[in-house]
């Protein structure tokens, strides 16, 4: 007789000393793991619900300005540093980790309209409606240095006088150059008192300017004549001009696909364009219900943040028609500036209520250092949620966002208007000679003209 029976000794399956790790044995036989899909679905549902439970995006507010925040600038060399300018001419340097003002930069007698930190992070420039541009040296402070209650002030290095008020400003990504806009576009050098170059196309004022992060000599502006203009420093005249139906308030280049840029338009939408083919937008990003005031790309280039006059902040995927996230609070007023932090984890917004707010880019993300097991678990939950996201219950929970009543109603109204427009269009087409009314896609609808 040959006999073998299962015989386990308890020592082999339990830990010897208390400080040992518990022994774990896996048997992946499907018979031991029934209802695999049903369990996965349950976990996905739980993950979707937990995401809602943990969705607490507002981290804090930076208060100190006495008037509404008009512009912000982040330091390309440091993560914890932020500059902000307000309508009363005040400029402040913030320590983001401690949420304190480190330094104040008095001098401007009108609203600060533009701020930009130099490529090396040692200087910054500001422009104002008082017709001056000021160059400041940026103090190199350590984290948490600003411990006292009294705030130091600092004088500008250079003050440059212009003829007209300035509307916007951006610093070059490589050299000591910066561009200001207003009545025309001026290119300045840190070491010169006069602009080294000036561009103008038409007589309308230019509202915003952004340098291309990849191609150092290229920049784009938006103007109050509803135009988007592309410039190259190497040639004396602007390259190309696109006129839309409504004006664009801001522009941001996609840092990963630097030939693409997105504009924040007055008509509540954002439009992504390819600078090589401007006949049609790549994508129309809808969801705001009032003019979009500012836009900034995440350093990953996969998403961007917009601030709007409708008192909300939205985060869009770079290729999505609708927003991924909407942020609002009871006290936040019109949002004038929005920035993604340098590590793509936070979103900073400055609004009419004189506050700068810090938000998480992913509303339910756990911040701080995570244990490997936590990471694994979260990745698993994310994956399961992704897998079952089309199931109605999960979709409903995942998509739901509470918005203020005003926005909700405005959304409804806009929907009604859009529907009625579409209906009218359809009827017009049906009652006209076939082909006499062309079918214009939404991506082209708002483009009026392209000039070379």
């Amino acid at each position, binding site marked *: *007789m*040959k*006999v*073998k*029976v*299962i*015989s*386990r*000794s*308890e020592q082999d*399956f*339990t830990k010897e000393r208390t400080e040992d790790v*518990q*022994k*774990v*044995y*896996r*048997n*992946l*036989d*499907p*018979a*031991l*793991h*029934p*209802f*695999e*899909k*049903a*369990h*996965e*679905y*349950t*976990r996905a549902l*739980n993950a979707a619900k937990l995401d809602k439970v943990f969705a607490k995006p507002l981290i804090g507010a930076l208060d100190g300005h006495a008037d509404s925040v008009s512009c912000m600038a982040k330091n390309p060399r440091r993560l914890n540093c932020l500059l902000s300018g307000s309508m009363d001419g005040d400029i402040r340097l913030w320590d983001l980790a401690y949420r304190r003002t480190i330094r104040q930069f008095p001098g401007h007698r009108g609203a600060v309209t533009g701020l930009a930190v130099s490529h090396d992070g040692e200087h910054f420039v500001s422009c104002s409606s008082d017709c001056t541009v000021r160059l400041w040296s940026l103090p190199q402070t350590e984290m948490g240095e600003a411990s006292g209650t009294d705030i130091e002030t600092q004088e500008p290095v250079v003050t440059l006088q212009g003829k007209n008020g300035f509307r916007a400003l951006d610093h070059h990504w490589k050299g000591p150059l910066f561009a200001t806009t207003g009545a025309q576009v001026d290119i300045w050098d840190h070491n010169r008192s006069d602009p080294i170059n000036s561009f103008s196309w038409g007589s309308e004022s230019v509202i915003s300017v952004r340098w291309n992060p990849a191609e150092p000599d290229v920049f784009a502006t938006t103007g109050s004549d509803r135009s988007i203009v592309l410039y190259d420093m190497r040639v004396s005249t602007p390259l190309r001009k696109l006129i839309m139906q409504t004006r664009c308030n801001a522009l941001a280049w996609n840092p990963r696909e630097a030939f693409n840029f997105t504009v924040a338009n007055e008509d509540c939408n954002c439009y992504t364009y390819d600078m090589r083919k401007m006949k049609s937008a790549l994508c129309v990003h809808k969801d705001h219900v009032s003019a979009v005031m500012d836009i900034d790309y995440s350093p990953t280039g996969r998403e961007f943040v917009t601030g709007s006059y409708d008192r909300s902040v939205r985060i869009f995927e770079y290729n999505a028609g609708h927003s991924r996230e909407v942020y609002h609070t009871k006290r936040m007023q019109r949002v004038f500036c929005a920035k993604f932090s340098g590590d793509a984890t936070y979103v900073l917004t400055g609004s009419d209520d004189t506050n700068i707010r810090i938000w998480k880019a992913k509303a339910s993300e756990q911040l701080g250092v995570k244990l490997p097991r936590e990471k694994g678990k979260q990745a698993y939950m994310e994956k399961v949620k992704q*897998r*079952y996201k089309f*199931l109605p219950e999960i979709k409903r929970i995942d998509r739901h966002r509470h918005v203020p009543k005003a926005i909700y109603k405005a959304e409804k109204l806009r929907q009604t208007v859009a529907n009625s427009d579409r209906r009218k269009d359809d009827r017009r087409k049906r009652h006209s000679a076939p082909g006499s009314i062309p079918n214009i896609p939404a991506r082209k609808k708002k483009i009026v003209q392209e000039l070379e």
Partner: protein
Amino acid sequence: MAATGVEGPPPRKKARKSDGSADTPKPSLEEAQAVIEKQQQKDTRKKAVKYNRGPQTKLKGIQDKKLKGQLRATEKLYGEAATSAAKVEQWLLPAEAGFLEAEGVERTQNYRQEAILPHLDLTSQRKIFDLRLPDLGPYSLDYTRSGRHLLVGGRKGHLAIMDWARAQLVTELQVKETTRDVQFLHNESFFAAAQKKYVYVYDKRGIEVHCLKEHTDVLKLGFLHHHFLLASVGKYGVLRYQDTSTGAIVSQHKTKLGRCGVLGVNPYNAAVGLGHSNGTVSFWSPNMSTPLVSLLCHRGPVTALAFDVEGRHMVTGGIDGQVKVWDVRKFQPVHAYFSPQPAQALDVSQRGLLTVAHGSTVQVWQDALKTKAKSPYLTHRLFDNSAIADVAFCPFEDALALGHSGGFSSIIVPGAGNPNFDSFVANPYETKKQRREAEVHLLLDKLQPETITLDPYWIGGVRKAPKELQKAQAAAEAEANRKAALQAGKEAALKNKAKGKSKPTKKHRKKQLNIIDNKKATVSADLASKQLKRKQESAVEDSDADMLRSSALARFYKR
């Protein structure tokens, strides 16, 4: 150079060949390793079949490139997961299953437990024992999922939980009431007992926690582990489901088939099977007030019912003396065995061993589900001719527990249990902390009762449109295509190529030709099918002719 080549030693290959003619060639180390590796890969591939999640998606007809890419990536991931799981099985599973082999003319069914005993190690020897409790029996039993704890309930109200592998009594109580069945809930800390009138829930200290007054006159209990549902059926033939995590009665179904004392839970889809006195077995889910399926299994009442672990087979025993094996996916009988007395209790072990118990005899059958077995694997007779009441295989152990009128017995059945447990599913060596954590995870992963169906994999799948609808859609599509083709033909601009070809009549005819295009395709398809048919017919005729030629009538066949 050429000259030296000719004069030099012959190439290596040739030399080996000449050696090989003398004696068998010795493979080099690398070659041997390559052969072994190949064999291992083959084994892994064979083992991976088990871990594949259904048949692969066919990518051929998919037009959408993005979807195709995603599906391809998913399939690849599934393949990798299956391979790695097979490798885990091959290398990391610590133990192998037990076995019992006879030598010479001996047969395993003749081995008694006393004969097996001396061949076992000390710990296994302790698993063969009898508890003589003649006054309180017959006993019903239940193991926890890990097989660590055993719950016994005597008819006269004696309830006990044992840490049976360590031979420790955890708790013992006397409820002084008829107790018909006992059932552990999600772990060893709670159990339910079907008593004279109601079902009671006790904790592991033996303290009565709940009295479930909705469950009246219950004869049999069952527990759905993944759904936290306690199912009961009794004298009045009402099947009740109670959620043990929330306490709510989920549903109550009247079977309308009278007294019912046979209940089994299919571990694959959590459908509850009930054996009725009219010989039918009905399958129930909490969501339907009528049975999902009803099977006529026996002539006369059904006495016992068991499912295998994978939920593929069901075994039923009837008063007609038959023990039948059913395919639960097709609802068809597979085999039938005859038992001298009606089977009182049935159970299927994790590795597919079947126990049939009647009177004071217990038979264990090996390979009796997939194939028809000729003779039992083991037989056992209870002491003092006690009558069997309940049998249960211990999960992850080679032990079989027998509850009978004389008390309780445990015997060894080599090869019954799965030798490798999964710590996250059922861990026999669970610590208190692990048990608490597992409980939380069980509750988080609890499945809703609404999801109980015959096919547990419908969730997340796509329900196809009914065939009639599909046909109607296809017809509408074809009609639209035809119309579009007609329109296109009419609108097509004709070229004025040659003299005399652009006459109005010819133009019209050409247009007609264009129109016919679509029709032409159908006509040609028709023609092709007709031709094929004709060919097949002729082939049949040919074969007839061949038959004629080979038969006795061949000589009359005209060549």
